[in-house]
Structures are given as structure tokens and as C-alpha cells.
């Protein structure tokens, strides 16, 4: 078996890819998908710790993270649809009414 540090490194790499995606993309839907990628990367490290410790609590936490991710995706997509109806765009640089 491989050590847990490889799982942690993979989790870190996936998380960083998600962060870079949030920073460079301008499409709001893709930004929410990158947030899902980051949540997923954290789940990898949680399950790795749960399995290596032999403790089921980490897997319960992953279950709740999945539920919260589902709720977050639903609300985020509803907000994007509402913005699209007013703006006809999901470009986040054009959604600047509340900036200054």
C-alpha cells in the first residue's frame, strides 16, 4: 500500500487547480464547478485520513460535505439564472452594479 502523504499531495494539487480555475475564469457557471472541484479535493484527504485511522467519522463528514455541496450548487445556479435574466450574461466582469 502507498502512504497517506501521496493522497494528501493529490488532494493539494486538485485544490490548487480549483483555486487557479476560480481566479482565471470569468464564466460564473465554471467558477461554481471549480468550487465543486475544491470541495472534492478536500473530500479525498478526509477519506484518506478516515481509512488510514480506521475511524468512520471522517466518512460521515464527507457525507455531510456532499449534502452541503448539493445545496450550494442548487442555490448558486438559481442565482446565476436570476442574474442571467436581468443581464443576459454570466460574465462576472459585467456583474458590477454593487462594486462602487
Amino acid at each position: 500500500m502507498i502512504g497517506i502523504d501521496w493522497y494528501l499531495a493529490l488532494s493539494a494539487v486538485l485544490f490548487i487547480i480549483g483555486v487557479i480555475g476560480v481566479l482565471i475564469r470569468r464564466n460564473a457557471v465554471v467558477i461554481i464547478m471549480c468550487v465543486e472541484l475544491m470541495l472534492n479535493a478536500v473530500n479525498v484527504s478526509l477519506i484518506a485520513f478516515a481509512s488510514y485511522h480506521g475511524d468512520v467519522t471522517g466518512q460521515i463528514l464527507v457525507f455531510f460535505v456532499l449534502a452541503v455541496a448539493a445545496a450550494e450548487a442548487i442555490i448558486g445556479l438559481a442565482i446565476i439564472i436570476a442574474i442571467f435574466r436581468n443581464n443576459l450574461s454570466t460574465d462576472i466582469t459585467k456583474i458590477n452594479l454593487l462594486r462602487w
Partner: protein
Amino acid sequence: MVTYAFVILAVLAIATALAMILNKNTVNSALFLVLNLLSVAGLYLLLQAQFLAMIQVIVYAGAIMVLFLFVIMLLNLDEEVSLFSKFRAKYIVAFLLGVVVFGQIIYSIGGVTEMLPEISPNMEFIGTVEAVGEVLYTDYLLPFEMTAILLTAAVVGALMIAQYKVKNTDQEI
């Protein structure tokens, strides 16, 4: 055997994640994210978490990504190729920031590397539906019920936000 499977799945996960953030087409991005979630589900299977691997495939790669694809096709986003960021400087800053955060995480993992757990002998017993379900319905029953309330509230809130025209009878006075 496990090492080969880990290497293949890890490379697949990283490659599909990179393809997701670099693809100009939004539908292709969503499909690459589905592939990424499937390879992560394979990693869960390597860690003997069978229940969560199935949940990942059914809920994440199935339900949530179908919702994403519905919204993408509803809004007709695949035409907007110009939504990719144009500024080169933004790429460089984002990449540098990512490298800094990555270095920080790796450094903090390296600081505790002697405290990391060795593999547990009862790893194969904790990932089954029975083991997860027993703990979930005894010790974590209240959070589980609150998750149900959270999901109901999220669906009702999404309906309220995305509704075309909310009827407001107070304004007619």
C-alpha cells in the same frame, strides 16, 4: 497493483481537472468535471470507502452534474467563447498565487510527516454501508435530520430565486 491503480487514477484526475479549467467550451468543462469525479470515486474505492464511492457516482457525477448541464444548455453558454480571461497578467498572478498556496500546504504537510497515520488493519470494515449507516443513524442522527431540512430549504430557496415573476399583491394597493 494498488500503486499502479493509484498512479493511473491520480494522473487521470489531475489531467481532467486541468482540462476542465483550460477548456473554452463550457459543456466540455462540465463533462471533464464528470470524468474527474469518476476518477476520484475510483480513488475512494482504493481507500475501501465503497459506500461513498457509490454516493459520489450517483449524487455528484449523476445528479449535480446533470443540473449543471441543464443550466448550461438552458442559458446557451457554449456560444460565449470570449468568456475566457483575456489578460495575460491575470494568468501569471493566478498561477503564482496557486504555487504559493501549494507550497504552503506541502510545507505544512511536511512538518507533521512523522505524525501521519500508518495504514489501519480494519480499513476494509469501515467503508461499508452497514458501518457508515450504523454510525450515521445513531451518533449523528441530529445532523442527518438537519441535512434534510437544509436540502429542503435549499430547494425552496432556489425556486424562489429563479422564479420568473414573483407575485407581490402588496404593491397593487
